[in-house]
C-alpha cells in the first residue's frame, strides 16, 4: 500500500473511501485460536465492502497511549476520520464535527441496544455513538484468600456487600508474612476512580448534576474519604497507594500480595484464565489464581450502584464537507462494524456486548452461566449512568476533576490533607468553576 494513502476520504478508483480509526483491543493468541481484534475488524470490513461495492474502507489501529491525542489534533484541524472509537466525550460534540446517529438508525437498532448503552452516549436527546459494549467496572478478588478469611463469595456476588462486611474480610486477609506484606485491599491512586465508586455506593451518584450543582461537598464525601484513610492507617490498604498505578495493583494481585483489588472488569476473567493456562503449560512461573469478580461494597443503608461505561463508534464529518452521500456511506459502515457480529469483540474481551442480539450470539464465549458470568448479568441490571451533561457543563466537570478533585485526592492519599480539608478545597475549586 505504501504511499498510496493521501489523507482521509478522497476517492480511489471511483470508490468512496471511509476512514476508521480504532484501537488494538486484544491480540492474536495462536494457542487458544483466538484471532486478533484487527482480524475481526477486517472480516467486518470485508463484508461491508462486499455489500457496498462503491465503498472502500480504510482503517487504522492507533496506539492506546497517544491515539486520543492524534485524533484530537486531526479533529481540531478539521480533518477527523469518518469513524472513531471513543468513550463519551462531550468535547467532540462541541466542535460541531460529530454527527448524531439518530437519522441513520431504525427502531430495530434502538430495540437491540441495551438501554444503558443508549443512555451512555446520549446528550441533547441525540445519540452520538453506537456502543460496542458495556464495560462494567467491578472489583476483583482472590477466591482462596477471601474464603480463608471467611467470605461467602456466592452471596457477595448475588447480593452485594456492605462497607463493613468488606472491611472485615479485608482486614482478616491483611498480614505480614516473613517480611512480605499482604494487603486485604489495593487500588490505584493515580486518579479518583475508586473514590467515585465508593461515593456512588454512599448515596452520591453524580459529582455534578445536570443543573450544575456540585454534590461532593458534604459529609458523605468526608465519610468516604475517612473510610479509605482508615484502611490505609490499619494496613489493610497500602499506605503508598498514592504512588501505585493500575499495572502495579494487577502485579501485586498476581503475586498473591493482595486479596481484593479495586477497579477491574470482566475482561480480567479472560486474562486470568490465560494466565492460569500458561502456568499449567509451564511457560511462566507463578501461582494459579481463582479469580472472582466482586461488586462494589455499599455503605450501610445506601443503595448498591454499579458503574459502567463503554466505548463506541462515533461518526464525524470534515470541515471540508464531503457531502451527504459520503456521510451516509460512513454511517452504513459504522452500523455494520458495530452490528451484531461485531459483538465478538466484546465477547472476546469477556465484556457484555451492547447489543442484546450479540449477547445471544456469543453466549458461549461469554460464559454467562459461570459464577462470574451470572454476576455480570446481575450487574447489568443495576448499572446507573453518570450525569448526562451539556458539553459546556461537561467541560466544567472535567475541569473540576482536573483542577480540584484529582489533585486534592492525591494529596489526601499522600497523607498531606485531611478528609475535611480535601473536601473543603475541592469544593472551593468546584464553586469557582461553576460560578
Amino acid at each position, binding site marked *: 500500500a505504501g504511499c498510496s494513502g493521501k489523507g482521509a476520504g478522497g476517492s480511489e478508483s471511483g470508490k468512496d473511501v471511509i476512514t476508521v480509526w480504532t484501537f488494538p483491543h486484544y491480540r492474536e493468541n495462536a494457542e487458544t485460536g483466538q484471532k486478533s481484534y484487527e482480524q475481526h475488524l477486517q472480516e467486518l470490513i470485508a463484508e461491508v465492502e462486499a455489500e457496498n461495492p462503491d465503498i472502500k474502507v480504510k482503517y487504522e489501529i492507533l496506539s492506546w497511549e497517544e491515539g*486520543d*491525542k492524534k485524533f*484530537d489534533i486531526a*479533529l*481540531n*484541524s*478539521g480533518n477527523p476520520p469518518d469513524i472513531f472509537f471513543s468513550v463519551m466525550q462531550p*468535547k467532540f460534540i*462541541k*466542535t*460541531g*464535527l460529530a454527527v448524531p446517529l439518530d437519522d441513520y438508525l431504525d427502531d430495530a437498532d434502538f430495540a437491540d441496544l441495551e438501554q444503558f448503552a443508549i443512555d451512555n452516549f446520549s446528550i441533547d436527546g441525540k445519540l452520538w455513538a453506537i456502543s460496542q459494549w458495556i464495560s462494567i467496572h467491578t472489583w476483583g478478588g482472590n477466591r482462596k484468600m477471601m474464603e480463608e478469611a471467611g467470605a461467602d463469595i456466592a452471596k457477595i456476588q448475588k447480593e452485594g456487600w456492605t462497607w463493613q462486611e468488606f472491611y472485615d474480610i479485608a482486614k482478616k486477609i491483611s498480614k505480614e508474612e516473613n517480611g512480605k*506484606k499482604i494487603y486485604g485491599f489495593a487500588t490505584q*491512586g*493515580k486518579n479518583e476512580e475508586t473514590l467515585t465508586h465508593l461515593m456512588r455506593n454512599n448515596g452520591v451518584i453524580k459529582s455534578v448534576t445536570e443543573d450544575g450543582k456540585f454534590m461532593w461537598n458534604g459529609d458523605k464525601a468526608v465519610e468516604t474519604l475517612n473510610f479509605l484513610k482508615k484502611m490505609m492507617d490499619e494496613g489493610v490498604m*497500602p499506605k*503508598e497507594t*498514592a*504512588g*501505585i*498505578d493500575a499495572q*502495579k495493583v494487577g502485579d501485586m494481585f498476581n503475586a498473591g500480595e493482595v486479596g481484593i483489588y479495586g477497579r477491574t472488569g470482566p475482561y480480567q476473567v479472560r486474562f486470568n484464565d490465560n494466565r492460569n493456562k500458561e502456568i499449567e503449560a509451564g511457560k511462566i512461573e507463578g501461582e494459579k489464581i481463582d479469580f472472582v469478580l466482586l461488586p462494589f461494597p455499599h455503605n450501610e443503608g445506601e443503595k448498591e450502584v454499579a458503574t459502567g461505561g463503554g466505548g463506541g463508534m462515533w461518526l464525524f464529518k470534515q*470541515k471540508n464537507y464531503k457531502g451527504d452521500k459520503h456521510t451516509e456511506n460512513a454511517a452504513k459502515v459504522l452500523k455494520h462494524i458495530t452490528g451484531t457480529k461485531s459483538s465478538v469483540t466484546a465477547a472476546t474481551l469477556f465484556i457484555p456486548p451492547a447489543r442484546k442480539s450479540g449477547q445471544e450470539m456469543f453466549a458461549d464465549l461469554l460464559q454467562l452461566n459461570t459464577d462470574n458470568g451470572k454476576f455480570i448479568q446481575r450487574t447489568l441490571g443495576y448499572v446507573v449512568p453518570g450525569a448526562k451533561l451539556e458539553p459546556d457543563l461537561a*467541560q466544567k466537570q*472535567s*475541569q473540576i476533576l*482536573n*483542577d480540584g478533585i*484529582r*489533585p*486534592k485526592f*492525591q*494529596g489526601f*492519599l*499522600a*497523607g*498531606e*490533607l485531611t478528609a475535611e480539608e480535601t473536601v473543603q478545597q475541592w469544593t472551593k475549586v468546584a464553586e469557582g468553576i461553576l460560578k
Partner: protein
Amino acid sequence: MTVAAQTTNDRWDNIKQFIKDYGWCYIFIALPFLLFLVFTVYPLITAFVMSFQEYGVMQSTFIGLDNYKYLLNNDIFWKAMGNTTIYTLGTVPVNILISFFLSLMIFPLNKRSQTFFKASFYLPAVTSGITMSLIWLWMFDPTRSGLMNIILSWFGIGQQMWLASSDSALFSLMLMTYIGGHGGGVILYLAAMGGIPRSLYEAAEIDAAGWWSKMKNITWPLLKPTTLYMLITGVIGSFQVFEATYVMTQGGPNFATTTIAYLIYQHAFEYYQFGLAAAEAFILGIVIIVISVLQFKYMSSDVEY
C-alpha cells in the same frame, strides 16, 4: 544621456552588483530559511493569532487579551510557572556541574578510558524519552519492592514515596535528570578542555596552584563559553519539559509536578482551548527569551561567539 536615465541605470547596476556580491549568501540560507518559514514561522504566527482567540475548528472568535488576562489571574498557571522555575533552577545548573565534574575526572585519563566513559555516559541518550520515563516510573515504585527504595535500603535509608508525595515528586523528576543524560555535556566539555592551552596549567603549577585552584581559577573560567551554551540550551529545554511529567505524573500529586508545558498540553488537548494554550506558550517563550538575553549579557563579557 539625461541625469534621470543615469540614476535608474545606476540603480539597476547597483542591484545587479548586489546580487552578484551577495546572491550566493542568500541562496545558501534560502532553502533552509524557506522551509523554516513554512514549517516553523508560519505555524508560529498562526499560533500567535490563536492566542488572541477562542479557538474553534469551524470558527474562532477574537477575544483580545482575554486569554492572557485569564492566565495571569490563574493560580494553577502561577503554580506551574513556579514548578517550572524550580525544576529549571534545580536541574540545569546541577547537571552542568555534574557534566563538568565528570569531564574533569575523565580528562586526565588515557585515550581508551576517555572513549569508554564518553560512550558510557552518552549511550543512555539513545533510548527514547518515553522508554526512559517508563523505566523510571518503575524504579520510583513507592513500595518496598521499588528499585530505588531497594537501593536506598542498602544504605539504610527508609522507604520513600518518590512521585507519590507532593514533597518529593518534583525532586524525583529532577533526580531522574541527574542520573544519566550527561553525555552531550561531557562531550562538549571534554572538547573544550582539550582547547585550553597546556601552558596555562604549567604556569599555574609553577605558580603553586593546587588541583582545586587550577580547577577554580583556570578550567572553570575558561570553559565559560561552553557553559553558556549549555546553560542556554539547557534552560530552553527544561522550561519546555513535558514528556516526563506526562508519562510519569500527569502533573500530580496536587499540582506538585505541573509544568507550563504540561499545562499547555492539558489546555490544548483536554479542553480544546488552543487559544489559551498558545497564550501560555508565548508567555513562556518571552520568559525564556528574557532569561537567555540576560544570560548572554551577564556571562558573555569574556566570551566570544
